[in-house]
């Protein structure tokens, strides 16, 4: 009885989107940056938030993590309301966050940074260091180096790797392409694609459309904290005026 009830609940949960944001407003002090935003992310889906600097993309991601921003509205992850949870509990529930400026622990080595992010296995799997080295081969060679001495690209890889150690179901990537050389960009885009193929859902905030082309399932354009467009890359390509208006290409 109870077992079938829990199976039912599990089935019901599985049918719902992984992340549901309903009427989110976020502010810093008196300045409101995100206004009444709704969005959903399905299991295993890659959603890309497009928009210019200051459009509210980063703030949306921080709101999901409960970091450094005052927020109102409903945020449901895997069937549970998380909008009043402390940040660490949100992370433990399976949301990984890679911030825009990476925020690696500069005084810790690469492996120590990764160890900080380690959480118990989820769905029977825990990322091992070996798997990380496979995903980001350059990190393996510098595993004992202090993270403060890493290049921008290496830091970005480390920031993603560190978050993966928490075995997330949903990964929030904030402007992963920012300030990176094209060669590095391709490698990181490839890695992100690989993560998606392993079933990790993604919310990626970006300004660089080329970077997300290969893995984005759905695009959502935000301007001044509100949703302006949602569709696939093909939809966007079909109407060039949208990109012209909302993205500084």
């Amino acid at each position: 009885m109870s077992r079938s009830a829990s199976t039912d609940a599990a089935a019901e949960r599985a049918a719902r989107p992984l992340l549901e944001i309903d009427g989110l407003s976020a502010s810093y002090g008196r300045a409101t940056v995100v206004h009444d935003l709704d969005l959903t992310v399905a299991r295993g889906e890659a959603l890309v938030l497009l928009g210019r600097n200051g459009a509210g993309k980063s703030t949306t991601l921080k709101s999901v993590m409960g970091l450094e921003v005052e927020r109102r509205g409903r945020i449901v992850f895997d069937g549970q309301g998380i909008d009043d949870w402390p940040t660490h509990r949100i992370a433990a529930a399976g949301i990984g966050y890679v911030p825009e400026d990476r925020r690696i622990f500069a005084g810790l080595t690469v492996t120590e940074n990764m160890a900080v992010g380690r959480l118990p296995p989820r769905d029977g799997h825990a990322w091992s260091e070996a798997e990380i080295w496979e995903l980001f081969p350059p990190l393996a060679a510098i595993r004992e180096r202090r993270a403060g001495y890493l290049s921008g690209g290496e830091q970005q890889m480390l920031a993603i790797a560190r978050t993966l150690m928490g075995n997330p179901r949903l990964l929030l990537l904030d402007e992963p392409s920012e300030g990176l050389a094209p060669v590095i960009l391709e490698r990181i885009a490839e890695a992100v694609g690989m993560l998606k193929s392993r079933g990790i859902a993604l919310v990626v905030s970006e300004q660089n459309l080329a970077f997300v082309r290969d893995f984005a399932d759905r695009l959502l354009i935000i301007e001044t904290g509100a949703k302006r467009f949602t569709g696939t890359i093909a939809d966007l390509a079909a109407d060039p005026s949208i990109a012209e208006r909302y993205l500084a290409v």
Partner: protein
Amino acid sequence: MTAPHALAVEHLSKSFGGFRAVHDVSFHVATGEVTALIGPNGAGKTTTFNLVNGQLTPDSGRVLVAGTDVTGRDPRALWRGGVARTFQITATFPSMTVRENVAIGVMALAPHFWSLQRPASLSGSATDALLADVGLTGMADLLAGTLAYGDLKRVELAMALANAPSLLLMDEPTAGMAAAEREALMTLAVRVCKARGAAILFTEHDMSVVFRHATRIFVMSAGELVATGTPEAIRRDPLVREVYLGKAAAP
């Protein structure tokens, strides 16, 4: 002998630890000219910018403003020498009104600093003229801390112009703004600087702003100046395409 350039940078180099951030960079900005310094992150443009504005002192090389060697002078001395700047994250005084913000720039030049009277610049014509130039006359009595970001940028512009500069340094002037606002701000900055005879050197990530407003562009990569030229020339330069614009410039 021609009139000295608004800014001349000669063989500037700067290292941090073993890292060569800027190596042997030379360029000049002519009087009244609008120029942009661009390059990918880590190219050394921020370091170069900070060497020019006095936040950093170069290991070697010189910085000349209107013919005077100002290498190693602090921002205060540079300001007195006719160099003004705006910041990437808009720097104003949030606890004061727009008028007070602008008046403070004028005040530092005024005598009677130690009087107990309210500052003359608060009702002075210099302040009024600056407010009118950037279109803030109507907002003069609002607190700077309550303004929208785009308006705040204009406040900062007026503050920067208070010392009647010969050179205005703008660090990513349009960061964090919507496209229409970006355009308006740069158009305004170029217009008021032209009217006052101030040259502009700015750094910027938004290429459309760079190509529309700069008459000359300096491109940096890996600490070195790799190209200088008009927007058309820079757009066509294959080297620039490779180091910076990458796919964004591709058709």
